């Protein structure tokens, strides 16, 4: 299974047509796939809170948005999630590269990984953790759930899910 393709197929099937991204090595394939699809407008952001602003506008313009980013972004976007996305009840699937988990080669990434789920829990953000490739089967349901409840929803995808870092 090509998980990049599966993720973007599910986005398209759920009418997600506006996607903003802040890159991560783990997410390079899915970002390429987003960029290649005619049915998706891809707009890279310089920072994740900026991206959430773009998604808020797209939502109010009648499009279904999504953001693709690293988990370090949770540290950047708490105010935006609380006072924009949640306060105005906006749906936002957040496809998050969960750096600093099992098979992570860069020690510093662990420092935000240990806070990621706690911060998301503190914000009452529904959170799913993809560790095995088969976990992607739930992605379609998660998207439907997000647009049903008009909330930001986090999908944490770790190195094991993406197949690790080459020979590490």
């Amino acid at each position: 299974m090509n998980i990049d393709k599966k993720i973007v197929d599910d986005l398209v099937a759920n009418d997600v047509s506006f996607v903003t991204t802040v890159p991560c090595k783990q997410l390079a394939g899915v970002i390429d796939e987003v960029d290649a699809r005619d049915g998706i407008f891809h707009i890279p952001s310089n920072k994740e809170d900026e991206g959430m602003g773009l998604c808020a506008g797209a939502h109010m313009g009648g499009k279904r948005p999504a953001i693709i980013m690293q988990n370090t972004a949770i540290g950047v976007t708490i105010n935006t999630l609380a006072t924009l996305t949640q306060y105005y009840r906006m749906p936002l699937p957040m496809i998050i590269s969960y750096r600093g988990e099992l098979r992570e080669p860069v020690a510093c990434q662990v420092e935000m990984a240990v806070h990621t789920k706690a911060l998301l829990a503190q914000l009452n953000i529904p959170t799913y953790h993809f560790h095995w490739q088969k976990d992607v089967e739930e992605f379609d349901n998660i998207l439907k759930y997000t647009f049903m409840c008009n909330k930001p929803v986090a999908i944490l995808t770790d190195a094991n899910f993406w197949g690790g870092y080459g020979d590490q």
Partner: protein
Amino acid sequence: MIRSEILRDIAPILRDQLVVCNIGIPSQELHAIDDQPSNFYMLGTMGLASSIGLGLALSQPKPVIVIDGDGSVLTNLGTLPTIGNNCPDNYILMIIDNGSYGSTGDQPTYAGMKTDLAAMARAAGCDNVVEVQDKDTGDALQAALDSGKGTVMVVKCDSGNAKMPVITMDPVVIKHRFMEAVKA
């Protein structure tokens, strides 16, 4: 002129347009001067008015006017390259540049010192950047709308705020009526 005087001046132009308004006193002033369902008031999240407006302009065909501030743009400077590289024809970013953080007590911003926001917008790739003096704002805004081209306006004016009440409308109500105006 101060910001509230400009908003009073241009209210007849804004009335028929989708407007995304910056957090704090700018939204309070616009709300008090001429509340419209087609106004989206930011109640939180400093800096993101330009981004919300850009996402909106890219997602539907009606013109979108963002009322932003120099301090707010400085908070979210990454917005300028994103605008410069993606600017749709229906997007107008109007930066009310009074050289101060008005909502927090008029502390000076760097835009009131050596920093030139219009030059930064041009360097970021924004094609149509106009510098406007406060009293000319209405004419410049109408010209930007008539041009049918994405435009960044930097409106130079005096620092200062009008005393207006806090917006007590529920955020979901603000969003709902705004989305109805988008669809209308």
